């Protein structure tokens, strides 16, 4: 058995290596001075950290990190709140109206936000939401809500109704039942919603590119792309910025791996 698993290990190593090859190359580039013309494969004799300092100063990475954190946290919190609130009555009260509302909300899963770019821009200009935290947060929340509602609907439908009814008979209001009985039960699916929505918002480039045009509002993806967009710019500094940008999500992923995987599986569940 042992002897025969050799090729499996070799193949797994090969696939994993190709998958993270660009990360390795980028790390090597980031720790070399721009004057070092050696191959991107070869680590430098001494690690050069000035690129990182430069990336923070010139790329204003600290501001970008702060903006991204605020937007991600705000969006995730609102998505959890609004989708759990929406899913509860839709899962519990089966009326024709609620069935129609559910179908409508889930069908938005199929609407690519990007195809609405021009009119969305017009709407955001009208309500003065361009280059504001709340403007981009509302856009992110809208396009992350359908999946979150889908996840909560599936989950709440699996919670026995007797739980709510017992509490209602005890004289609790619907809101109290939701807050005290349903909400605590939703913890596992809430973790999935936060991870899926958080990753999507943290990594967003398209919406941010359009709706966050003023430089002080730049998020990480925009800060990095501006490094690369300037021709003749310092590519080693750009590499350092790219490395810094993937550190938080990598640490979170390694620490909370099973929740990340569960998130995908929840969203793939039919």
């Amino acid at each position: 058995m042992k002897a025969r698993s050799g090729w499996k290990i070799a193949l797994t190593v090969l696939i994993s290596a190709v998958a993270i090859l660009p990360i390795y190359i980028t790390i090597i580039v980031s720790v070399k001075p721009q004057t070092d013309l050696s191959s991107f494969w070869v680590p430098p004799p001494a690690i050069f950290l000035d690129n990182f300092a430069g990336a923070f100063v010139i790329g204003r990475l600290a501001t970008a990190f702060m903006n991204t954190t605020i937007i991600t946290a705000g969006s995730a919190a609102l998505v959890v709140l609004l989708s759990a609130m929406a899913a509860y009555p839709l899962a519990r009260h089966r009326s024709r109206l609620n069935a129609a509302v559910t179908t409508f909300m889930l069908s938005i899963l199929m609407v690519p936000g990007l195809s609405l770019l021009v009119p969305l821009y017009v709407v955001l200009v009208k309500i003065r939401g361009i280059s504001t935290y709340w403007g981009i947060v509302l856009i992110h929340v809208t396009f992350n809500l359908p999946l979150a509602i889908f996840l909560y609907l599936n989950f709440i439908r699996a919670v026995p109704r007797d739980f709510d009814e017992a509490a209602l008979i005890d004289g609790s209001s619907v809101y109290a039942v939701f807050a005290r009985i349903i909400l605590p039960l939703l913890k596992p699916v809430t973790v999935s919603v936060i991870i899926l929505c958080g990753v999507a918002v943290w990594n967003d480039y398209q919406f941010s590119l359009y709706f966050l045009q003023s430089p002080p509002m730049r998020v990480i993806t925009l800060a990095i792309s501006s490094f690369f967009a300037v021709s003749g710019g310092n590519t080693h500094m750009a590499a350092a910025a790219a490395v810094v940008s993937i550190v938080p999500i990598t640490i979170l992923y390694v620490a909370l791996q099973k929740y990340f995987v569960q998130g995908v599986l929840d969203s793939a569940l039919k």
Partner: protein
Amino acid sequence: MYLPALGLFLVFVVYPFFEGIRIAFTNWNGFSQHFKYVGLTNFSVLAGDRNVRTALLNTLLYGFGSTFFQQVLGLAYALLLNQEFKGRTVGRTITYLPVLISAVIMGYMWYFVLQYDGALNDVIALFGGKKVLWLSRAGTAISLIVAINTLQYLGVSMIIYLAGLQNIPQMYYEAAVLDGAGAWRRFRGVTLPLLYPAILTSVTINLIGGLKLFDVIRALTGGGPGYATHSLATLLNATYFGSQRAGYAAAIGVLLFVTIFAFTVLTQAVSRRREIQY
């Protein structure tokens, strides 16, 4: 309690949807107060626009190309990782990591591999070959974009298939072995049909992701050389912000919407017809 969510959908999806169709019938430039309704002009120009035709074809190549390779490689990799051997958990962890990295940053990282003085050309030079401008020929650039997108999201199909494989009861395989079925027959007769729901989910997710591909293209080629590697999504962006043709960009948006919507509905329809019960 669903009213806040409903309100957001009305303001940021339903209203823009109809507003987008209205703008597509105008010659609006995106900022002026003045514009005219031009009827179907934008759509008739669209139908004859070579750049749009290229972008539509590329969109389908990106969508179906990535989806095809993601299924074949994702399933093969899941079958491998479904077996007992040392290091399979680590393999799964590493392969899934790129999924969590922003596609635009991943694209820039690949640029260090593909640029003229990059890592790939170093290997070619090492073996005495001539350095290649990887991204300056349309065909090569499109294939590389498909490959990079496939590789980045391989982890998604791998995880879905791995979960699907672990849900197949072992007794079906035991029964098949008793019937004398070989490895290929077991795969065709047991694994594949029971994996059908997983295949469908994975195809739908990958297809939608591939059809609206934007970030990698922006990072690697910006749609060039010329207009050769544009997808509908990047062309829409270039038309709106690059050439200030908001009316025309809105028409491209309608085309993008119809393309993605049509294929999503199609996969769903196929799935309803072929549910398999054991």
